[in-house]
């Protein structure tokens, strides 16, 4: 147990600090895992523009993850680096949403996942826009400006696939149905959530944010006659990671594990 507290944590009471730690770790892990998944498309996306798009999206998300892990490392102040938090955990210790645990899949699956994630992330970031924790609020302000482009990209593709009868639409609907039970897992309630809301770190509880997110995506889903994801079971929505994630974890930690402690 740490006895000294970081300068960043000094103004926050320990219960709030634990809740903030949980929130930032879940956000950072989400961005890290989707960023790594998307980078798998580099070189093999359906068209050249999408090679560039997926590579840029991946680079953005990994950049956001790094900034969040760095903030978390500062908050903890225990000497652990951002890289150590990102890479030196066992698969079961990651806290990303189960939505991101379905493997890369085909292009339709990638678009369906990106659409659910980008819109959910947008709602979550909105809930942090007035956060009482200034370093997170400032970072979120910057990140939201970039995420706007991600939502545009995902929406354009969702519409394109949905409006094209036959294989594109069929594959999209199949992907949306496979993801449906986990679509809302970005809003999995956090243990310390009441504390976060009470201290103004986040504007609303996750269930309220989830309702906001559903209201945001409903018009497009109705317009395109696509199946809305049902209110799923969010229990353990960030703690049960299956085989596809074990494989991804093996990939993204392979360099780090090949020579522990190496410095570039």
């Amino acid at each position, binding site marked *: 147990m740490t006895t000294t507290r970081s300068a960043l944590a000094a103004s926050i009471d320990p219960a709030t600090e634990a809740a903030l730690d949980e929130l930032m770790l879940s956000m950072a892990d989400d961005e890290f895992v989707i960023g790594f998944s998307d980078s798998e498309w580099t070189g093999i996306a359906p068209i050249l523009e999408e090679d560039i798009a997926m590579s840029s999206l991946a680079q953005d998300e990994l*950049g956001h993850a790094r900034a969040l892990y760095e903030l978390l490392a500062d908050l903890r102040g225990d000497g652990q680096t951002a890289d150590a938090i990102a890479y030196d955990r066992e698969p079961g210790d990651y806290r990303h949403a189960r939505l991101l645990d379905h493997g890369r899949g085909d292009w339709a699956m990638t678009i369906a996942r990106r659409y659910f994630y980008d819109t959910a992330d947008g709602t979550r970031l909105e809930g942090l826009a007035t956060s009482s924790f200034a370093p997170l609020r*400032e970072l979120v302000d*910057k990140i939201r*400006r*970039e995420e706007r*482009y991600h939502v*545009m990209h995902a929406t354009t593709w969702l519409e394109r696939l949905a409006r094209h009868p036959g294989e594109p639409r069929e594959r999209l609907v199949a992907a949306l149905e496979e993801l449906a039970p986990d679509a809302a897992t970005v809003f999995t309630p956090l243990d310390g959530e009441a504390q976060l809301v009470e201290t103004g770190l986040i504007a609303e509880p996750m269930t309220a944010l989830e309702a906001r997110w559903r209201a945001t995506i409903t018009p497009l889903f109705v317009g395109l006659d696509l199946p809305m994801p049902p209110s799923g079971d969010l229990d353990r929505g960030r703690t049960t990671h299956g085989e596809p994630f074990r494989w991804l974890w093996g990939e993204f930690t392979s360099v780090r594990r090949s020579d522990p402690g190496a410095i570039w």
Partner: protein
Amino acid sequence: MSVTAPIVDESAVRAALAEITDPEIPTISILDLGIVHRAEVGSDGTIRIDLLPTFVGCPAIELIRSAVNDRLQSFGRPVEVSVSFEVPWTSDRISPEGRERLRRSGFAPPADIDAVHCPYCDSIRVAMDSIFGPTLCRSLFYCRDCRQPFEAFKPI
């Protein structure tokens, strides 16, 4: 004979920073790009610089940080260069001179999608090919008049 120490104040520091260019677009200085948030000389003589990344995941920021650090060593003072998100970098921070330099290098300065002009022939008859381009901060366009592909800075 004693050597007169050079004056180290904010304007001297800024003049030095004006010599450092963006590694991805070497015709524009980091001052014109608007990424220098703070350049101060503390009462203890320490030079403190805060940089704003154009994008959170900008891979050039570490290179810029070390270039700033190297350049300022010549003042013979302690130098601290930090990366900050205290205010967001936005494309409005690019100076008029910076926008002109971008255009002359073949990049359309940041503008809304329907206000992008071709940097070569100034035509407004342009089409966006891809929101995403070779770096995080640029998109791909095509000019229907002079038939040149070009890159535009994303408004952010």
